[in-house]
């Protein structure tokens, strides 16, 4: 049995490599745009038009002209390339009411017939946007608190419950940072926007991260009395290998389902699924390579500031590897 726990320093370094670029991107993005991500209209207000035309031929200039009268803010106009060869454009502008949107549609219709039945508009005022942003902040806060509390409750019967709780929370923070960093990087380079669904993805990732840690910790909890003479590290390592089939099989199934959605889902759902999938992979990774190594490092008093808490607990068991 390959000793994963022994290599824990390497895993901490790998995690750092996974997280740091994202954090840098978020800091850079905050410094240049005022927000760690490119925020969608859900959070800042504005309109998104998904325009479908009955025939090709319309140009970006035409579209800008049609909007010019009603939308003074700088428009983002983008042609969507789709497999079915239809003429679709995505336009982002400021928040407008129905009358103005209809007037724009009339303008467009004169240039090139608009396929109203395949056109979509979302429009959100700044007030609503800022309310959603505030609610999002509280949702993340509430979710983190309640879940942290739940983990500590769930492991209350285990010696050192707080360690398990803190390690699971660290893994959770790891995964949330990974997906937030990813969203920030994708925003900087590919224009991905963060919307209400992104927040849903982040919270779902958080839930699944905890789920993975719980399964693994449950096994450690069960194995400790069974292999009493063994060093803690060996027990933990054994627990990882015992649950790894489950992790891989579950991951594979999640992959099947998400691949199916990616294949057929709409554009908005695709980014959501991509974020969710990376988050789930990170969740499995972090439970094995972040939460558990942290637990061991804590047990062995390797963590700065934490050693005092460790000293109050039973002395560490001998650490010789008995070759399992």
């Amino acid at each position: 049995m390959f000793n994963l726990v022994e290599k824990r320093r390497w895993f901490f370094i790998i995690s750092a490599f996974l997280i740091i670029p994202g954090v840098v991107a978020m800091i850079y993005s905050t410094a240049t745009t005022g927000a760690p991500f490119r925020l969608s209209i859900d959070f800042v207000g504005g309109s998104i038009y998904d325009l479908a035309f009955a025939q090709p031929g319309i140009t970006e200039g035409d579209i800008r002209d049609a909007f010019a009268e009603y939308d003074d803010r700088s428009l983002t106009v983008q042609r969507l390339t789709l497999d079915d060869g239809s003429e679709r454009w995505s336009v982002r502008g400021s928040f407008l009411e129905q009358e103005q949107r209809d007037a724009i549609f009339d303008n467009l219709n004169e240039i090139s017939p608009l396929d109203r039945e395949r056109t979509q508009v979302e429009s959100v005022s700044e007030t609503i946007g800022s309310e959603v942003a505030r609610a999002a902040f509280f949702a993340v806060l509430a979710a983190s608190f309640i879940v942290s509390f739940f983990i500590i409750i769930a492991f209350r019967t285990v010696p050192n419950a707080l360690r398990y709780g803190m390690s699971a929370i660290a893994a959770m923070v790891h995964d949330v940072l990974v997906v937030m960093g990813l969203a920030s990087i994708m925003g900087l380079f590919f224009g991905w926007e963060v919307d209400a669904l992104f927040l849903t993805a982040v919270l779902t990732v958080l839930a699944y991260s905890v789920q993975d840690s719980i399964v693994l910790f449950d096994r450690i909890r069960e194995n400790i009395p069974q292999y009493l003479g063994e060093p803690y590290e060996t027990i933990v390592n054994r627990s990882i290998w015992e649950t790894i089939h489950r992790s891989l099989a579950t991951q594979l199934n999640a992959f099947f389902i998400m691949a199916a959605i990616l294949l057929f889902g709409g554009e908005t759902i695709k980014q959501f699924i991509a974020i969710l999938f990376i988050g789930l992979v990170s969740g499995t990774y972090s439970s094995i390579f972040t939460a558990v190594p942290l637990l061991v490092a804590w047990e062995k008093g390797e963590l700065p500031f934490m050693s005092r808490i460790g000293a109050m607990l039973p002395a560490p068991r001998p650490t010789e590897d008995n070759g399992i």
Partner: protein
Amino acid sequence: MARHYRWLAVITLLVAFCVWVSLPGTTGLDWDGDGEMNLVVEQKLGLDLVGGVRVLLEAQLPPGSFTPEDLQRAADNVNKRVNGLGLTEATVQVQGDRRILVELPGVTNKKQAVDTIKATALLEFVDFAGIPGVDNLEDVRILTNEQDKLLKARGEQAPSDLQRRPDNGQPFTTVLTGADLESASAQFDPQSQDFFISVQLNDSAAATFSGFTGARVGQPMAIVLDSTVLSAPVIQSQLGSEFIIQGNFTQDEANSLALQLRSGALPIPLREEAASDVGATLGQESVNLSVRAGILGVLVVLTFMVLYYRVPGTAAALALIVFALLNFAAYKLIPVTLTLPAITGFLISIGTAVDGNILIFERMKEELRAGKPLGMALDLGFNRAWGSIRDSNISTIIICVVLFFFGQTPGASVVSGFAITLILGLVINLFTAVIVTRTFLYILASWLQKPLSEKKWLLGA
């Protein structure tokens, strides 16, 4: 063993019920035969799947200047207008203390619908008699004493673009408002090819009105809608309780105005704060794609489970079908409005559903490898995995509750659809992953006892 067959009977009945509920033709059950459904079964589809409009309207008044009853009355009036437009699937609900959410699935004339709903539609008959310089006020916005009263009640100043009486700078005098109307309907005059509104006043207003017009024959009277002068005809003769309003209306305008007058003016002016407008074809395409994604995803998962875990995998695959049926039935019974995020939530919950089974089966394989006999390995697999399944599901359920509340924020409503289907999936999974799979697996194991004890590969071990 008898316990498992009892459960099988329960599950079979449940499945039969769910299949019946899930059938597209099922609309409900009427067991006392009074012609009204005792159990309504209906699949609601969200705007992103059927197309239509959703608008969030906000009171255009400072907080505290109107009561919750005013807002409710505004919502009721909006509801009357929506019904008047024949939009039966529509929903109108008050959100918070200053907003009304209107959803119009399947609506085709979106412009007319939203315009009709949003307009305050305060109709006034204004005395123009004896005032010099009023003949060119058509299409101009004016201030009347009725509006002045409303503005003062809200503690607002009259907007400066409203014209006052040119002779003394006072507001114009309102004789009657739309609140005194008994009925209003749009009609067509084939001679002039014009649409007009035919109105009937209630009895007390009719008395006032005929007294007023009788005294002012030969003088102008303005018909004012939301401060704008529609027309200022000269009173030809004393008017009774029935008369017409002309104003170069198109058919849509005449219909909307008649409807607005019938349903009454909104006590609070409303403004659009958010809107979502989805084309019907786009919605249908999304339905087709997500159904395809769903079927493909589920088939691959079923195949994987059967290939990788063999006999237990078959039990899990059957349990997964039961899981899906229970979910579909729940969506129609609760009812849950299906949207794209809601469907995604369901698909994600399938992943969790199989995770429960995987936990159990991996555990079983371990026990078999440790040399435990088949029956004992089955028992241990289910008993020992239960704690993990429960704890891990609870953490996800907590997150879903948070997401659901986040989804209550106007503007983030897509999120609640995801949260509801995922939470339902997780709860149903606690039943199917454990009880249904266990029942199927123990029964399969009892049928295949001999081959299973000889050929361990059948257990995926």
